[in-house]
């Protein structure tokens, strides 16, 4: 296979050696939290978990932007989509996630005009090509994706579009990591930090975590060798009593990140408090459109009254997202709650922790 800068990071022989080195570096039990849902998927898909020795315990964190979107926000998106003359564009990831009553996919089957797009640019094009409809883009994602939505909005502004709107449920990762540490619910000995979020934000935002909380942070890529190398670097820090921010994914992450991407993101958005499924309200952890972009804000332009929010009884997604339990510890896991009939988003989302355990869990 010739996928450059991908294939080389999936070499089996190197994986075995790294696993070996991890084994030698791990004396006492450690909890390493992989914050990012894409890490969760990669770890499962490539069978990384099975290569790790027992003392190394991987916890999944709240880094699945789909899973942490609240029922209230999904209900609102569905309500927006249900209006006459509105087309709701969304990334595919959100389609099957259940809100209080249904998912966007079910709303679509009921007649709502919901379209899946691969890029925020596609939604701008949809708006441009369908001037008689209002195009609302359901903007989900962390700092990796938010700059792309900002760029798309600026493009829409440049095109003079008056039918393009954004419903932002964007969230920021470092505040959530700090909220987890503050809650002291789970002992976290090290963070595997999200590689692509860090491409944008750089390494600086993790410094308070390493310095103030004494938790080592290693920014890792997503290929299996990246993850293994990242874990090795964390264990080395723990063994040497250091707590620093290190970059494993140096081919993509610069310490300064991508300043232009951040600048565009903060030109269009400002921070606000946000509700996270499982973590509650975290101050300064969300993004909302700035006042000067009010004309593009779907929440300003459309007054919808979604039905009362309901939580799924018995669903322990919140605990899973905080690393308090692993999915098999949820009584609903693989019984009442499966990918075919999911109760909560952690089972539905392609990178949800519960889906990962279910789909890719080892045979033992």
């Amino acid at each position, binding site marked *: 296979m010739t*996928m450059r800068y991908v294939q080389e990071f999936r070499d089996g022989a190197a994986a075995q050696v790294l696993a070996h080195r991890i084994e030698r570096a791990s004396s006492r039990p450690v909890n390493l939290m992989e914050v990012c849902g*894409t890490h969760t998927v990669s770890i499962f898909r490539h*069978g990384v978990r099975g290569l790790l020795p027992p003392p190394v315990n991987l916890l999944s964190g709240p880094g699945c932007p789909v899973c942490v979107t609240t029922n209230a926000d999904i209900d609102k998106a569905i309500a927006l989509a249900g209006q006459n003359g509105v087309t709701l564009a969304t990334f595919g990831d959100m389609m099957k996630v259940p809100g209080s*009553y249904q998912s966007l996919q079910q709303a679509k*089957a009921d007649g709502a005009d919901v379209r899946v797009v691969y890029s925020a640019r596609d939604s701008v094009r949809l708006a441009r090509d369908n001037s008689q409809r209002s195009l609302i883009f359901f903007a989900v*994602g962390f700092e990796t994706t938010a700059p792309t939505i900002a760029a798309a909005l600026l493009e829409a502004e440049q095109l003079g579009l008056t039918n393009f709107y954004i419903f932002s449920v964007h969230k920021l990762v470092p505040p959530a990591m700090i909220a987890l540490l503050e809650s002291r619910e789970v002992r976290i000995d090290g963070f595997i930090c999200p590689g692509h979020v860090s491409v944008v934000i750089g390494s600086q935002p993790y410094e308070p975590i390493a310095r103030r909380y004494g938790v080592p942070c290693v920014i890792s890529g997503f290929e299996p060798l990246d993850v293994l190398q990242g874990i090795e670097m964390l264990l080395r820090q723990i063994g040497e009593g250091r707590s620093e921010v290190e970059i494993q994914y140096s081919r993509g992450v610069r310490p300064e990140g991508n300043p232009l991407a951040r600048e565009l993101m903060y030109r269009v958005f400002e921070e606000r408090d946000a509700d996270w499924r499982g973590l509650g309200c975290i101050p300064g952890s969300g993004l909302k459109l700035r006042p000067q972009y009010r004309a593009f804000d779907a929440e300003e332009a459309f007054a919808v009254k979604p039905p009362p929010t309901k939580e799924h009884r018995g669903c322990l997604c919140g605990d899973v997202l905080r690393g308090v339990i692993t999915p098999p510890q949820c009584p609903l896991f693989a019984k009442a709650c499966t990918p075919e009939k999911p109760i909560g988003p952690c089972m539905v989302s392609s990178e949800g922790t519960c889906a990962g355990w279910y789909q890719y869990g080892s*045979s033992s």
Partner: protein
Amino acid sequence: MAKINKILLAHGSGGRLSHDLVAKEFLPPWQNPILDQLNDSAVFSLSSDSSGPRLAFTTDSYVVKPLFFRGGDIGRLAVCGTVNDLAMVGAKPLYLSASFVIEEGLPLSTMRAVVRSMRKAAAEAGVQIVTGDTKVVEGGAADELFVNTAGIGLVPTGVAIGGDRAQVGDAIILSGSIGDHGIAVLSRREGLEFEAAVESDVAPLNGLVAAMLAASPNVRVLRDPTRGGLATSLNEIASQSKVAIQIDERKIPLKDSVWAACEMLGFDPLYVANEGKLVAVVASEDAERLLAVMRATPYGRESAIIGEVMAEPTGKVLMKTAIGGTRIVHMLVGEMLPRIC
């Protein structure tokens, strides 16, 4: 969580929901032992003592959009799909029917192109289209064109191929690269536009199957992994035969460009549709010989042994990953959607 009381798009994607729909809504009311075979075609004898010649009978509807894509079109798909369903039970395909549901306003030239393509495909497969039907519906009631084909074939005496026939120790052979068709179709679709150097693999496989059956009496299962992909077919076999299947990721033929497209969109090639490939479960002692025979045919050049049948864990499909780990390969659940996460 809302109960499903409407048909969702996901019910048509070939995975778990499709299976459930058939099991819950179609099998019970129409119950009969032939239907219960649940293979790609129904096989039955016309004589009461089931000694005489057996017929294979199958049908499929084709709703692919766009109608024309790199490497094929709905017409070729409609002929090959049904020919292949017959071939998968070891039948020699003989006759096809072709029904068209056409949206008013469809250009005649489009219809002619589809019909021409069907003629070519039928000639290649050695079948004749002997009966058909045409309906025209109002604009919006059908997406340009839907095609249904039904097919009849003859199963030679002594051939017994079915999803429940895999045995522990058998080898699993895949006739070529996976994901080509699904990606070729996706490349042309609105919203996922990119020029992939990928062509659909749509092809009639009856020639390949005939060569295989001539070479060995121990071909136990044949499946063409269409909707739901290779993962779904292997799960079906494991479940029907009450065995476990273990495959090796590194042995699965996969074109670089298909892999790249899947990575870009967040798809897993194991779940992407194929229209010109088959997976075979064969006695292990015949595996190498069959492999050689397959590789000598036009549509089997890249055949590879990708795994084996084991006893446990029953009904499950496991895969050894490129880095030496193991993962479970589940059936497709719902539609495959692009991801950014």
